[in-house]
């Protein structure tokens, strides 16, 4: 992200904003997958299997989010 108006202010803030984003990406994916897992268990009456599968998938989804974020830091657009 090249900004020719404020050359020195922009990168510093971006670094901080990335730091705040990484911490919640993993959490968000896990929360969503737990909710979906519990719903699946309720619908199909398959008590722990849906939750366990979805938590594993959610963990990978969170890692994927973080991977995409870091790729954007290394190579901004």
């Amino acid at each position: 992200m090249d900004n020719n108006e404020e050359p020195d202010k922009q990168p510093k803030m971006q670094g901080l904003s990335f730091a705040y984003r990484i911490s919640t990406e993993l959490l968000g994916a896990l929360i969503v997958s737990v909710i979906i897992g519990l719903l699946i268990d309720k619908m199909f009456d398959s008590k722990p299997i849906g939750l366990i599968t979805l938590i594993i998938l959610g963990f990978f989804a969170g890692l994927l989010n973080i991977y995409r974020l870091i790729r954007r830091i290394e190579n901004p657009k």
Partner: protein
Amino acid sequence: MAKGESPLKQFEIQPIIDINLFGLDISFTNSALWMTVTTAFILIFFTVPFLRSKKTNSVSDLYPSRMQVAAELGFSFINSLLNDTVGKEGKKYFSLVFTLFMFILFGNLFGMIPYSFTFTSHIIVTLALAMGVFIFVTVLGFVKHGVKFFSFFVIPGLPIYMLPLLIPIEIISYLSRPISLSVRLFANMLAGHTLLKVFAGFVSALGIFGILPLVFIIALTGLEILIAFLQAYVFAILTCLYINDALHLH
């Protein structure tokens, strides 16, 4: 902070005017009050300097007033943000990003005033904002691309046997956007304000040594103002990125 008062008491919602409509409690609360104050302030902040500059008979037309510079700074900040992340097509969505940014920014900043109420420290408020962005972006993707929008969940160049595993992961990753967007803002505001109150409680409890937490609070207040700005910035930049994803799909 009075003795025995919880540091979480500042987040309690108290009704100011009780309104009961058909069994629905829609009282005007302190949260609603501060939202109104924020909106009114933003309206004044962005209309008053430009009302003045419309007078054509004075020399002051040649240079902008201080308030006009401040308002234009906010405008150009979001404008360049949209230009960098979305590009030329981003101009259409300026009003959405700008409104969200200003509402969250001034909501956070007004929350820093002692005895005020920080409405962004409630998950229901931030989740409502994030869900608004999420629904808008999803509808935008469907309007722009139709059924092709579903190809967003397929990473190009992937072997076909990986798809059953990766499509659920992509869908969870997509659905996690509003959650992480809202939790980030809410958790930062909640944690920061609780920390401030906890350390404020130490000042009176420690007597003469209370000077140490007092110094710490001063530093922490500065940090909180930075976070208030930063969280609004993160919310705005993520809205831009999601719009970009919906417009361009990968």
